[in-house]
């Protein structure tokens, strides 16, 4: 009996120690001797990993005295942040990690990310100025610190199924692009007509679910609608512009231009050929072939003009890493002009020198040079990053719950007023 009691005590003690070790984040003194680095990421794509390992190996070969190995560990949880959080809460802190742009401001504000500005600026040939300000600013602080390198800047574009649109007797949308007639209203008119004529879905946003509401609200910038103020402290949902935009969006659902929202269930894929228009990033082109004729266009304009939008992913060093300096060194190497060009095979880069058709056609093999120019190269330098807020993770579910009535024909004013009632206290901090 005593033996058993001792075992229980030991186990419980281990648990307590483990938990308290996690709680007291240690700023351990930098280790001497070569260290093993780990990077968490959400992609388990073999080609991505092969490239990263190649770059990692090259770094270790040159800096073997500092770094003995670099391991890239995909977080297999489909909810990347949930998986990363579990991992870190359990005591397994990676040195570097991919960070989605929605989490950026919060992580910066909470001090989760390590400032790598000095390392990047002092690295030979790094050329910090080559990085587009529009891309880098979301990852900076007011005092010039840099908390991440935005290795992926993927614009949102309008995919058009030309065959389907033509079958419904509608005009050629690609020809409209660049003219003053290329507006959201025109596009949804065509979408509604196509839906009426063929029964196919008009315009869908594949990544939209009520949980992921920002993929709809982000388009409101073309109406001058911002979900919150520039400094993120006051709610913009109940502004007249947002109400106008959401009412317009709701009308489109009612008239069939945009399919009805059905919970989290998967929407029709553009690749199925049964969708006229789709708002998505570059990655959707991967599943397309020439079964039907399609185009990749910049977003249309709204009542307040043309407002391109970009989604980002950055790579950062975590403040809680025990090997921050070595990790920062690798980050500088990974994202220097040469390696950035290699990364650009898969991800639209933030470096101005790499924003050209030759580099990008590797990341976008199915797009024509004109499409790359118009919808990526011309867009990235002037695009706004999807709206971010340091407290986003605290209120995103409250927004979802309050905004749900909008998708099913409810009162827009009431919904948006409720949103602001719910989230203003959190925004004000």
């Amino acid at each position: 009996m005593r033996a058993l009691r001792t075992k229980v005590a030991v186990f419980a003690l281990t648990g307590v120690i483990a938990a308290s070790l996690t709680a007291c984040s240690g700023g351990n003194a930098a280790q001497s001797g070569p260290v093993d680095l780990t990077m968490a990421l959400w992609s388990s794509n073999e080609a991505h990993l092969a490239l990263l390992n190649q770059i990692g190996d090259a770094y270790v070969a040159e800096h073997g005295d500092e770094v003995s190995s670099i391991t890239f560990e995909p977080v297999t949880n489909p909810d990347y942040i949930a998986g990363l959080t579990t991992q870190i809460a359990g005591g397994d802190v990676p040195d570097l990690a991919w960070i989605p742009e929605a989490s950026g401001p919060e992580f910066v504000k909470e001090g989760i990310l390590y400032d790598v500005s000095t390392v990047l600026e002092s690295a030979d040939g790094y050329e910090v100025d080559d990085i587009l300000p529009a891309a880098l600013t979301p990852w900076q602080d007011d005092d010039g610190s840099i908390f991440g390198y935005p290795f992926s800047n993927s614009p949102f574009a309008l995919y058009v199924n030309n065959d389907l649109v033509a079958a419904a007797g509608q005009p050629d949308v690609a020809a409209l692009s660049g003219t003053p007639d290329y507006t959201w209203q025109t596009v949804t008119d065509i979408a509604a007509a196509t839906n009426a004529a063929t029964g196919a879905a008009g315009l869908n946003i594949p990544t939209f679910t009520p949980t992921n509401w920002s993929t709809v609200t982000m388009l409101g910038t073309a109406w001058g609608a911002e979900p919150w103020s520039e400094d993120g402290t006051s709610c913009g949902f109940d502004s007249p512009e947002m109400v106008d935009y959401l009412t317009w969006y709701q009308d489109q659902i009612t008239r069939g231009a945009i399919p009805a929202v059905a919970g989290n269930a998967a929407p029709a894929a553009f690749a199925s050929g049964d969708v006229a228009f789709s708002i998505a990033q570059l990655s959707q082109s991967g599943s397309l072939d020439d079964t039907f004729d399609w185009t990749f266009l910049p977003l249309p304009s709204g009542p307040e003009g043309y407002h391109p939008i970009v989604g980002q992913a950055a790579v950062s060093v975590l403040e809680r890493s025990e090997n921050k300096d070595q990790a920062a060194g690798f980050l500088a190497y990974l994202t220097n002009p040469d390696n950035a060009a290699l990364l650009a095979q898969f991800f639209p880069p933030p470096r101005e020198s790499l924003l050209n058709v030759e580099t990008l056609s590797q990341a976008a093999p199915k797009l024509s040079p004109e499409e790359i120019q118009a919808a990526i190269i011309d867009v990235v330098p002037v695009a706004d990053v999807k709206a971010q807020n340091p407290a986003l993770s605290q209120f995103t579910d409250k927004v979802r719950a309050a905004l749900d009535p909008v998708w099913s024909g409810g009162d827009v004013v009431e919904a948006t007023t409720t949103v602001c009632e719910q989230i203003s206290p959190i925004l004000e901090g």
Partner: protein
Amino acid sequence: MAQSTATKIALYVILIAASVPFLYPTLWMFFSSFKPANEIFTQPPTLLPREWTLDGFVQVFTAQPFVQQYGNSIYIAVIVTTASIVLSAMAGYAFARIEFPFRNAAFVVMLAAMMVPSEVTIIPIFTAVNSLGLNDTHWPLIILPIFGPTAVVSVFIFRQHFLAFPKEFEEAARLDGVSRVGIFFRIAMPLARPAIAAVGIMAFLRSFNMYFEALIFLRTPENFTLGLAITRYQDFYGEQMWTTQLGAASLTVIPILVVFLFAQKQFVQGLTQGGLKG
């Protein structure tokens, strides 16, 4: 009781109608694995593929080490089932037949533990698993179901069964000088086949389809179990490969169903004999 033909027909009609929500989704899942990737979204939706293709199934094996994952699930489930049966039977027997100190308190403790949801306790357990270096191994997936709160149901079932057991057998054996352990293994267990069947099937299914624990503890695809692997079919750009997922799910389900089709007589008849009638 004899039935008229009319009653029989009525019964069949009701049974067939009732079967639809149970069978149709599985059938849809199965047939959709044979569809080309885009046909899942056609309007109006179809049950049978317009175009039969094995692409979905081929990708099941090429996109992930599916065979190895299948093997993982099976060997883990076998270990968990066997150990579960033995340990929960022992505990159930103890609660039913052995007067030990604090027996009632212990029973309440087990009841209480059964009600703790796993989402709630996963963090402290994860911390401990991590500090023991057992991350990304199968150990947590084996230890947790056998020793953890989910085993309490099995203990329940065995306790029920042994409670209804006639005491004369054991008393006779005791008079003959057989030890407690001997009685358990040579008399009680052989007659506990119904409970063993019930507990065995439940434990096997729970382990085989385990998702949440696998999600938290496993990292490398080679270590995945099926419940988790099914959700991981994504293409180059991270888009879901629906037909492949459904194909993998079908491959997971069919063998079990076949086994059940043949073994269910034992299962049900087994449960009947003094198992749960109290």
